[in-house]
């Protein structure tokens, strides 16, 4: 049902939304503007909302002080593989939990969901030992395998399962009559219809992998293998103090792809979440 809102209420609601926006937008604004301020201006009092003078050399220094392009590539290809892998694993697992009848399906699903309750800080030490034995420490394998088969994938499986549960069973029955087997039904009918849920899984997973911090600092030790969140901590002067403006320039560059992905895919993101019954 459509309800009419009076103009006065509309103004008030928009005003309220603008106020609520401040805590979300201000840090980003601060990051972007500070990345072009001289370091002395960043902590000036009263704070400067707009830079008094612009220092664009910070962006050049980002690339000079670290193998930033290489680190960018590391983050990008790891996030891409993790996203793609998670989409495959979670869509298949989610479909199986939603549609295939097998003994103790619900119990197994509950056990899988329990994985979400274990913080990554708890599992990081055993994981380290495992990857050490496998000779994978200081490689990107732990950053690829852990999310695809770990908690992020469990969450993605949950999202996909919730979506597949809502698909009308008759569609699959019609496909069975039309001559399709189980896997083809999944690939030709269920998966194309799951695009909104897959999009939200992709964004979640990409963000998670892109922002991963604990795992890289545990598993990686050489600068050329670093990912972006880890690289950001390396912009320090000779005394170990952070070079704020360069660090914030690197942070701005790090946030950029995430922002672009979200702007492009926000419709699917919201639709996908709406299907799962989850709220952000």
């Amino acid at each position, binding site marked *: 049902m459509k309800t009419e809102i009076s103009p006065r209420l509309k103004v008030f609601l928009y005003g309220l939304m603008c106020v609520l926006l401040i805590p979300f937008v201000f840090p980003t604004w601060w990051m972007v503007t500070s990345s072009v301020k001289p370091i002395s201006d960043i902590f000036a009092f009263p704070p400067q909302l707009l830079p008094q003078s612009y220092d664009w050399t910070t962006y050049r220094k980002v690339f000079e002080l670290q193998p930033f392009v290489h680190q960018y590539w590391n983050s990008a290809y790891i996030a891409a593989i993790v996203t793609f892998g998670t989409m495959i694993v979670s869509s298949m697992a989610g479909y199986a939990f939603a549609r295939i009848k097998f003994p103790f399906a619900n119990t197994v699903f509950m056990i899988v969901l329990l994985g979400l309750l274990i913080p990554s800080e708890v599992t990081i030490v055993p994981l380290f030992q495992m990857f050490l034995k496998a000779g994978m420490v200081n490689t990107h394998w732990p950053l690829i395998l852990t999310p695809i088969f770990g908690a992020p994938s469990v969450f993605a499986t949950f999202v996909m399962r919730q979506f597949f549960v809502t698909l009308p069973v*008759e569609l699959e029955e019609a496909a069975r*009559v039309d*001559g399709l087997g189980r896997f083809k039904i999944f690939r030709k009918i269920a998966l194309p219809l799951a695009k909104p849920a897959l999009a939200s899984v992709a964004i979640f997973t990409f963000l998670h992998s892109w922002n991963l911090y604990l795992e890289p600092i545990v598993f990686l030790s050489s600068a050329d293998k670093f990912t972006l969140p880890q690289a950001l901590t390396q912009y320090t002067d000779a005394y170990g103090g952070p070079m704020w403006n360069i660090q914030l320039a690197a942070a701005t560059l790090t946030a950029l792809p995430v922002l672009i992905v979200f702007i492009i895919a926000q419709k699917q993101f919201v639709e996908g979440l709406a299907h799962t019954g989850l709220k952000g």
Partner: protein
Amino acid sequence: MAEVTLSRVQKSYGALDIIHGADLGIHDGEFVVLVGPSGCGKSTLLRMIAGLETITGGTIRIGGRVVNDLDPKDRDIAMVFQNYALYPHMTVATNMGFSLEHRGTSKAEIAERVNWAADILGLTQLLDRYPRQLSGGQRQRVAMGRAIVRNPQVFLFDEPLSNLDAKLRVVMRGEIKSLHQRLKTTTIYVTHDQVEAMTMADKIVVLNAGKVEQIGAPLDLYDRPANQFVAGFIGSPSMNFLDGTITENGFAAPGILLPLPQMSLEVNGRKAVYGIRPEHFALDDSGVPAQILLVEPMGSETQVTMKLGETEVTGVFRERILLSSGAIIRVLPDRANIHLFAVDGGPRLN
């Protein structure tokens, strides 16, 4: 086209029996309607024929071949679902040609078959649209198109008109019937609407609580229902029933004595149920008195709710009755159309 035969077909979920040994023979090219109230097992039976449900016992044959353990795709059937089940991400043409695509049919032949089906169903202009861009009736036609495009041995329809409004339902009813007359494919059609069953079927199968109550031509079921359930289910408004005793002088219902048809007197003194359809009452001065409770003029006929003795019944008369509630009229049941049934859902007695 093919014959379909069901022999002692059963379905149980654990200890719960859903279908209790159904026997049914469907001739080549016949239009058979499975009808019954919600939960009677008619859709389950259809889905068992389709192969979407396993069967617990018995045998299903399509075209002489036992199909009990065959997948739906190997049964050479096509099904139209209640909610159409069109693939939302495919155009009308792709929806219709989808099954052929997966059976290795050449693209040229798929296009030819789809165009043929679209032409029959008036869908030619809609082939590039998506299901969401179609009206309910158009979706229904696409679902039928998807079924006929394959030229299967048997069509299965699972309550295909129940999502349409009353007017469109009548139109689509005619279209399905004329499609059958054109293609002559064996058709099994499930509905809970007895009007649909009466108007479309060559043969009706009445189901109740997982049992086949009666099989026959629509008018045979209407004229000679085998038991009280069938009598009450077929016909609208439904048949009137009065409990009482068969006597030499007539049928003694509470507060009234009703005339009986010619029959052997062996049943004299037996408790029974007296059935009479609303249109088989006539206004006649020699009839029994009935007190009017409600008069509903329909234009072509008048529907009257009245009290016969202590039982409330419905009568439908060609005459216009201008009396109001409380008035007494005299009505005469047509002796040739009186049905007597054993009590507690037993069989027909006359």
